[in-house]
C-alpha cells in the first residue's frame, strides 16, 4: 500500500498493514549492512535531524547510521550545550530547526507527548525516538522484526513482558504493536510497577514470574531504573532481583524454543543474569542489528520512499 503518513509518533495510531509494510521494508534494508560499501543513494539530498532531549547512545547512533547508510545528511542536536540550556522552549527550538528545512526530525524527549506536540506544529516528518513513559515505536518495530525473523510469523505467539511496565515506553509500544499483529501479551511484575487499568490495553497481568513465563514464546525483560526505590515502588534491588530476575534456573520451566529479549541497556545481575543474557535463547544483539534496518525503513518511508 502507498505510504501516506507524515509522522511516526505511536504504535497506538498505526494500522497493522502499515506495521507489515515497515517490517517488510526493514527486511529488505538488512542486505545493505552486508555490503562492503554500506551506502545506497535513497535519501541523497535529504536532511535528518536527531533532536535528543534525553541521553541516549544506542537509539541515536542507530538513527544516525540508518540515515547515513541511506545517504541522508544527519545532524545531531542534543539538549545539553544548546539553546535549550539557555531557556529556549522546546517548541521554539524545534521551530528554529524547522526553519533550516530538514525532511525528518527524530525526537527523543523526557516528556510524554513531546513528539506529538512537534508533529502537530512542524510541517516536516517527525519520528518519535522515545517520549517519557509514553511510546518508543521504532523499538517495538525492531522487536517485532526480530521475533518474526526467528519465529517466521507473529500471529498467535505468546509474549511476556517482565518488569517496570509503569515507567516503560518500550512496553507500551510493544503492547500496541503486538496486539495489532495478533499476539497475546502478558505483563508481569510487582503490582507497584504495573500501571492501573492495564488490562484495558488488552493484556493479561501476572504477579508471579514462573507462571507468567511458563508458556511464553518470547520473554522480554525490561531494565529496572535504580531510582525506583526512592519512589517506594520496590524495597531494594536485591529483593527485586531475587523475585523478578531471570536466571537460568527459571528458564528450565520455559519452552525450549523461547526467545529472550531486552531493549537495553542491560543491568546484568538485576533483571537478567549474565548467563541468560549470553545464552542461546538471547536475541538481544539481533535486536540492536535490526534496529538499524527498522530505522532505515522508517526514514525511507517517511521521506517519500515506497514500501517493499
Amino acid at each position: 500500500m502507498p505510504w501516506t503518513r507524515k509522522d511516526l509518533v505511536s504504535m497506538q495510531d498505526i494500522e497493522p498493514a502499515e506495521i507489515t509494510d515497515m517490517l517488510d521494508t526493514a527486511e529488505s534494508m538488512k542486505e545493505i549492512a552486508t555490503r562492503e560499501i554500506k551506502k545506497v543513494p535513497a535519501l541523497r539530498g535529504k536532511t535528518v535531524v536527531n533532536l535528543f532531549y534525553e541521553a541516549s547512545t544506542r537509539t541515536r547512533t542507530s538513527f544516525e547510521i540508518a540515515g547515513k547508510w541511506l545517504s541522508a545528511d544527519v545532524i545531531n542536536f542534543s539538549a545539553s550545550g544548546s539553546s535549550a540550556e539557555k531557556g529556549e522552549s522546546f517548541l521554539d527550538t524545534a521551530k528554529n530547526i524547522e526553519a533550516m528545512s530538514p525532511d525528518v526530525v527524530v525526537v527523543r524527549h523526557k516528556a510524554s507527548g513531546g513528539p506529538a506536540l512537534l508533529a502537530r506544529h512542524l510541517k516536516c516528518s517527525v519520528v518519535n525516538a522515545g517520549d517519557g513513559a509514553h511510546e518508543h515505536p521504532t523499538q517495538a518495530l525492531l522487536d517485532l522484526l526480530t521475533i518474526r525473523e526467528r519465529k517466521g510469523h507473529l500471529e498467535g505467539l505468546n509474549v511476556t513482558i517482565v518488569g517496570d511496565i509503569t515507567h516503560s515506553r518500550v512496553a507500551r509500544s510493544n503492547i500496541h504493536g503486538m496486539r495489532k499483529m495478533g499476539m497475546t501479551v502478558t505483563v508481569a511484575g510487582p503490582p507497584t510497577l504495573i500501571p492501573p487499568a492495564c488490562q484495558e490495553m488488552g493484556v493479561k497481568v501476572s504477579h508471579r514470574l514462573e507462571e507468567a513465563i511458563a508458556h511464553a514464546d518470547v520473554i522480554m525483560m525490561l531494565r529496572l531504573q535504580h531510582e525506583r526505590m526512592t519512589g517506594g515502588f520496590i524495597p531494594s534491588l536485591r529483593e527485586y532481583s531475587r523475585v523478578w530476575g531471570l536466571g537460568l534456573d527459571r528458564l528450565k520451566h520455559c519452552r525450549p524454543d523461547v526467545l529472550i529479549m531486552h531493549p537495553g541497556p542491560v543491568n546484568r545481575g538485576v533483571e537478567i543474569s549474565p548467563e541468560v543474557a549470553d545464552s542461546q535463547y538471547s536475541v538481544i544483539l539481533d535486536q540492536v542489528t535490526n534496529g538499524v534496518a527498522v530505522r532505515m525503513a522508517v526514514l525511507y518511508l517517511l521521506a517519500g520512499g515506497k514500501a517493499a
Partner: protein
Amino acid sequence: MKLLIKGGRVVDPANGLDAVSDVLVTDGTIAKVGKHLKAPEGTEIVDAAGKVVCPGLIDIHVHFREPGYEYKETIATGTRAAAAGGFTAVACMANTFPVNDSRSVTDYITAKARVEGVVRVYPIGAVTRNLHGEELAELAELAEAGCVAFSDDGRCVMNAGLYRRAMEYTLPFGAPLISHAEDATLSRGASINEGVVSTELGLPGQPAAAEDVMVARDILLAELTGAHVHIAHASTAGTVRLVRDAKARGVRVTAEVTPHHLVLTEDAVRTWDANTKMAPPLRTKRDVEALIEGLADGTIDCIATDHAPHALSEKEGEFDQAAFGVVGLETAVAVLLDRLVRPGLLPLATLIARWSRDPARLLGLPGGTLSVGTPADVTILDPDAEATVDPSRFHSRSRNTPFAGWPLRGGPWLTVVGGKIVRVASRRGAGVPPAEANP
C-alpha cells in the same frame, strides 16, 4: 436611574418564581416584579421577550492574578470576562503575588475592584502565610478587611493539626474554609487522572483517592470543630458520596463543581492539549454522572468556574510542564445550558439556583435573589443564542480553554450590576459599582 426588564421568563429560585414577568429596578435595587409593570418617566426599557431573567450569577471561585501575575489576568480584564459571561459577582482566590495573606493585599484588591472592576469582587484570604501550610495567616484581620472565606486554593493544607486550628479560629467570623482537597503524597508528579488514559499516555496520574482522602479528613475536622468547610472543585464520585453522607449527619460541609468537570472526562487528554490539564484532573464518565446527580439533588451546592488564566507560553509546551488550570468565565453558562440543560440532565431552575441563590447563601453575600429591596444584580440569558466558542474574542487576558471550537446553544445576553447594564467594552472605571462588604 430606572430600568424595566420587560416580558422575560423570570426564574428566581429564592422566591420559587418561574413565570413571564417584568422586573423594575430603581436606584440600584429591585423595586418590583410582576406582570405588565408600568415604566415611570425616564425608564430605560429592556425587551427581554424570549429571554430568561434571573438573579445575577455568582462565581465563588476565580483567579484574577492581580497583584503579581497581571500578564495572565487583571481585575479589570477578569471582571469584564465575568460580566461577558453573565456573572455579576465573583470571589477571587488568594494565590496572587504577594499572596492575599494580609490586610494590605486585601485592601489593594478591593480598591482595584472599586476603580477598575465591572462586577462585584469578593476577596478570599489565605489560610496560611504565603500558602506554605505552616503558620496561620492573620485571619481575623483578613475577615475584617472583607475576605468572605479562607483558602489556600491551588494547594492543600496537608497539616491536619493546623487545618483544625484554622477551622476553630475562624468560627466567629462566619466565613468558611474552602478546601483544595488533594493529598499531595498521592498526587505528586501527576498531571492527569490515574486510569487507562494515564496508562496509555505514560503520564503520571493521581487517583481519585487523592481527593477523597482529603475530603474525608476535612469532613471529620468540620465535625470535630463545628466549622463550615466548603469543598472546592469536587471531581470524584467519592467526594459526592462523602459529602452526601456528611450532610445527612448534619456536618457543615458544602461543595462546588466546575463546568469542565461536569462535561469532560479524562478522554479529552488523549489530544495532548494542555488545556485539558487542571487540578483536580478530568476524571471518568462515572465521576461525571455522580457530579451531575449530586448537583441536581443538592449534595453539591453550587457551580464555580475555577477560572484559572494562564499565558499561551505556559500552556503550549510539553504536557507535563504546562500550568494547571483553564479559564471558564466566558464559556461556563453556554457550556452548561447546552450540555446539561438542553439534553434534560439538569432543570434550568436548578442551574440558576446553584449559580445564584445557593452560592450567595453559602458565603453570606448580598444578591442571589430578585426579592424587592435587594441589590439589582440581574443576569439575562438567551436560551436560543447559537455561537461557536472563539477564544480570540474573550475579554479575559488569557485563552486557555478546553472548549475552543465548541458549537453551543444558549448563553448570557445581558448583565446588570447594581441596576446598571454592564457594557464590557466600557472604559476603565465607567459605571462601576463598589464591591459590597459582607452584610
